[in-house]
């Protein structure tokens, strides 16, 4: 009987798993029969310390961690699949889920401690603020000044087309939700974005789906510069370990900062467990919990947030670029700029 049940569960699970594209998965077996199912866009190497910390505190809970792309995550949660927690760096998609009533409210002292810009309506909670950065290979910039602003970067790329041809990388915003968010927010904030895109477009740019691949490409010399990479601690760590071959540059003036957020889907089976996980994430985001956490903290003040020096605002304006008409118009313009072959 028990065997039959197990078999049925396995069949159902594999059927569900086949319904969407899983990039990675880890299961931390607990002593009890409670399961917390997490759907996330964060790579395992970045997120493992969080899972381990929660598992150490709640050894009876089995953790099931599934990594998918942000667009997949959005689609899966919208379809009503049973996950207890959705963690994503695509703020706009997360926001739309919450706005459409697909997230459950959660209240606790831990999330109350979050700054006002780090939460929305008791349903979305931020736990890391990550800037978009440029990663460069130092040797490819030999003899050139390191760019500190977008204008510097535009000038350097424009003046040295031969050196950078085919060696410039950025997100393919048609595929990457995060890349699209960075691009739209930057286009809204600064005119330099389109000029930079034009210049990159003339240099036969390489387009990527994910930050990790771009950083790897810079590290192994295929790229001289990767623009709009998610500047998590992973990139910093790589830059340190490369002995100066790879550098992380943060553009002054306007800087894109996204919030990595968590929400409890409406279909969650274990919302209380999910709430506890969110509490832990919120504490790590505020560095109220000891430990060496890989993701950057929510270090911005309310004043910085108000002056737009802080992260992108969690609010209905995020839905503007998700609108199909707007998206179509933006992508047309982006393709015209970046694809000039």
């Amino acid at each position: 009987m028990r065997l039959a049940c197990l078999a049925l569960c396995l069949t159902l699970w594999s059927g569900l798993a086949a319904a969407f594209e899983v990039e990675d998965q880890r299961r931390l077996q607990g002593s009890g029969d409670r399961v917390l199912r997490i759907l996330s866009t964060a790579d395992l190497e970045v997120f493992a310390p969080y899972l381990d910390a929660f598992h150490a505190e709640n050894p009876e809970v089995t953790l099931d961690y599934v990594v998918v792309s942000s667009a997949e995550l959005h689609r899966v949660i919208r379809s009503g699949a049973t996950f207890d927690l959705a963690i994503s760096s695509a703020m706009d998609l997360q926001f739309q889920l919450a706005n459409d009533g697909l997230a459950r409210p959660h209240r606790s002292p831990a999330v109350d401690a979050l700054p006002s810009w780090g939460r929305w309506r008791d349903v979305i909670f931020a736990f890391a603020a990550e800037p978009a950065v440029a990663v460069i290979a130092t040797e490819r910039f030999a003899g050139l000044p390191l760019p500190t602003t977008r204008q510097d970067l535009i000038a350097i790329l424009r003046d040295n087309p031969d050196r950078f041809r085919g060696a410039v990388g950025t997100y393919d915003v048609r595929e990457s939700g995060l890349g699209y968010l960075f691009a739209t927010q930057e286009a809204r904030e600064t005119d330099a974005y389109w000029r930079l895109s034009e210049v990159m477009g003339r240099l036969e740019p390489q387009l990527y789906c994910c930050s990790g691949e771009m950083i790897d490409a810079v590290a192994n010399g295929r790229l001289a510069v990767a623009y709009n990479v998610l500047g998590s601690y992973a990139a910093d760590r790589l830059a340190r370990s490369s002995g100066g071959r790879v550098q992380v540059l943060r553009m002054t003036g306007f800087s894109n900062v996204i919030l990595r957020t968590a929400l409890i889907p409406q279909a969650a089976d274990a919302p209380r467990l999910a709430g506890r996980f969110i509490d832990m994430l919120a504490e790590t985001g505020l560095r109220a919990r000891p430990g060496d956490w890989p993701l950057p903290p929510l270090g911005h003040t309310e004043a910085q947030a108000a002056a737009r020096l802080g992260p992108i605002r969690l609010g209905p304006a995020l839905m503007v670029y998700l609108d199909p008409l707007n998206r179509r118009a933006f992508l047309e313009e982006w393709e015209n700029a970046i694809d000039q072959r």
Partner: protein
Amino acid sequence: MTATGSIGRRLTLLLAGVAALLSLLSWGMVSSLARQAAERAQDDVLAASVTTIAETLRPEAGEIRLELPYSAFSMLGAISDDRVFYRVSAGDRVLTGYPDLPHGGPDPIPAGRVLFETGAYLGDPVRIASLTRLVLADARPVPVTVTVAQTQDGVRAVSGDLSRLAAILSVAFFLIAVGLSFVAARASLRPLNEITQAVLRRGPSDLRPLRRAAPAELAPLVGALDRLMGRLGLSIRRSEEFIAEAAHRIRTPLATVRAQAEISLRAIEDEAGRQRLRRMIRAVDESSRSAGQLLDHATVAFRAEDLSRAPVDLADLARRAVEALEPTATLRDIDLRLEAGSATTVRGDAVLLDSALRNVLDNAIKYSPEDTTVTLQVHAADGQARIDVLDQGPGFDGAPAEHLLARFKRGANATGIVGSGLGLTIAADVLRAHGGRVELAQRSEGSGACVSLALPSA
């Protein structure tokens, strides 16, 4: 009299009730206004949002194009953390947004004006703003409707906060109003209390009109009281006059009877007959004295109302009283002694004071055993003039003597002696009318009573 609840408490409760009603009303009004203001603010932002979106509508190659401006939604996010839904449709065709979002208002919506409606979407109440614009597509105007909806949690939060604040203020207002009601009730009842106090402060025989300014509401009561007292005074005066008249009418025939008896006494030789006549004369004397005292009493009541304040020498007064009662005293072998120092003057009615002293002296003689002395001492000290009448009789038997001043009350040891019980009452009434008093005491040395008439000196 039955007390039926306090006017003050009823007034306070009534005013407090009115205050509670007003507080409740004002709270309700402020809450409703706060909600309206918050709703209007949301409406304004929603109107701005749909207008901004509608302004981007344009025809392009026969198609209707638009782009959602960033500001259209960021302004909605700025006022509250409310959920936002939108839809743009050309006729029945949804161009973008949430296809099942109701657009509110009549169908088709008249162009050019923002229409608002409250509805529900995805299980939450929402405020919906819609604006229709005509856009030329393929050379014909197509009505395009832009609809933006927002949940109302922010409105509820704002109006809830204001409503709570208004509730606190209303309670404070109510408490202040209750305090003021209490003060107001006290203040409006003060004239009534003052009149009550004025009536209570009066002496037992003071039946003068109140003569006070009274509020219009109390004037009838004061007038009625005055008239009642007038009638009462008149009735008392009539009965006093009747008593005086009666006493007077009895005394005259009694005097005749006494004179005739005296003549018969002299004419009759038979000892038994003489004895009977003497008893008759004594009885007539007693009757005459009682009638005299009744007359005195009536006189006191009558004259005390309008007391004259002429200087009276107490020593002179005492001397005349002694002279007048000398025959009575001699009849019982009682020696009357007067000890008067310098002239001791008081202001008052000589007739009344004389009547008071005579009654006291008469009492002293009456209750003294035969062959004793009654002493009158006239002296002044500490702004007080006194006549002490000291006898060697049985005294007051150690019992509290003050009740003897009441009308028709006699001492416990007075049995066997003829008396009316009016004498000390008359003296006490007279002295009270003059602002003085009668003091009864046991003599300190030897037996006997000491009755003092104490008056303020002139």
